[in-house]
């Protein structure tokens, strides 16, 4: 009658993969545990085994190689918040981390866990989406690097199986003249899950070269809105275009009613927040 959850603490990715394989996908990876422990407690998840990644040193750290910044999946939100490399290349990421949860949670929660948990409101997702980040996945069928945009498949669902590990996040360095910021709409000033969030990436000052807009908490997955980018690209960066992008974002989002907000309200906020976020970039904001 009693079920026992096996526990293992591998030292390498290889070892971890072996454990996962042994349990045929019924094992759960635990990184910071800030999402998973509550899910287990509430009976939402009942894994056969826990594979604790904490000792897998190769999954830690932030480094620049060539034109790419690599963030280990096990990097904590606190480390992201305080990373000099990120402050230099992608100030939006430390800023985003600083908005999330609380200091105590940030000290243990990992960026990999945030993405792998695949909450529609996962705050790390929208900025990484607009930065064109890729995620490295180990395990069957094979090691691969896929765009983050292809990673999420539904609330709590990703392309990964129970035998996969998200190992690294790779972000191409931003070209000169590109800026990226992230904004959230919450009720409380702190410790609040976003009702709506918007990340935007714009290259170009007067005229928009490349644009990307992503939304959080308003669809089954964090989503890019190519329609919003389209109305901006190749156009002067002016209020008319920015307003049009907001409207596109509103059309594209697919929010639901829940205890945090109604779908209608979310749709409205998507428009407002997209417009404001873009306007802030136009006005010179950088994180």
């Amino acid at each position, binding site marked *: 009658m009693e079920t026992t959850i096996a*526990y293992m603490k591998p030292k390498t990715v290889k070892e971890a993969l072996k454990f996962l394989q042994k349990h045929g996908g019924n094992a759960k990876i635990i990184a910071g545990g800030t999402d998973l422990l509550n899910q287990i407690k509430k009976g939402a998840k009942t894994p056969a085994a826990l594979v604790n990644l904490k000792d897998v040193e190769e999954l830690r750290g932030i480094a620049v190689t060539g034109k790419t910044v690599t963030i280990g999946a096990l990097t904590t939100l606190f480390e992201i918040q305080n990373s000099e490399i990120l402050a230099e290349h992608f100030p939006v990421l430390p800023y985003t981390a600083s908005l999330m949860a609380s200091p105590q949670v940030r000290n243990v929660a990992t960026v990999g866990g945030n993405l792998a948990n695949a909450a529609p409101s996962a705050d790390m997702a929208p900025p990484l989406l607009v930065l064109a980040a890729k995620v490295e996945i180990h395990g069957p069928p094979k090691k691969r690097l896929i765009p983050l945009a292809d990673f999420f498949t539904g609330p709590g669902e990703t392309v990964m199986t129970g035998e996969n590990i998200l190992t690294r996040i790779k972000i191409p360095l931003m070209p000169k003249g590109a800026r990226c910021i992230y904004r959230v709409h919450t009720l409380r000033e702190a410790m609040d899950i976003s009702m709506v969030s918007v990340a935007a990436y714009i290259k170009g000052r007067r005229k928009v070269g490349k644009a990307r807009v992503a939304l959080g908490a308003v669809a089954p997955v964090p989503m890019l809105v190519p329609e919003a980018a389209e109305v901006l690209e190749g156009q002067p960066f002016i209020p008319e275009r920015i307003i049009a992008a907001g409207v596109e974002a509103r059309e594209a989002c697919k929010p639901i009613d829940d205890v945090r907000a109604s779908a209608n309200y979310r749709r409205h906020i998507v428009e407002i927040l997209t417009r404001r976020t873009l306007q802030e970039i136009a006005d010179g904001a950088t994180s």
Partner: protein
Amino acid sequence: MTAKGEMISITVTINGLPYTAAVSATMNLTDFIREVANLTGTNVGCGEGECGACTVFLDGSSVNSCIVLAVDADGKEVTTIEGIGGPNGDLHPVQQAFIDCGAIQCGFCTPGMIMQAIWFLKQNPDPTPEEVRAGLEGNLCRCTGYEKIVDAVLTAAQQMNAVETSVR
């Protein structure tokens, strides 16, 4: 059926003393502190990382002990509210400031608040009131409206900085 984790023997050093026990892999650190080490100053207000009442230091960083696995503290140092004062009942300046400034009402949030405040002041020894509020954004208090808690943290910062300067 509630699933239990495999039993694993761990040793956690809490406030300088080692505690060894075989625990379930799913046991959280709060339970280890409260039930194994029998240190009851660490409170549980939610068990879900939302209130901060269970805040302790794990190898020096503040964490919600309710959402950290006990096995993750194996071989590590934990500091709880019982471990921050000096010998002979001396209080940490943050504890003293909480008392003096009236930052305590029912006191249930207090141990977690004080732990978080101490950690925060290590990161930011000379904060503005706004920074203090942000530093305590993971700690709920239902009694005080936070005003006197913020006062207490600022007061403690001043005192700790004054001591620091006089030592130099």
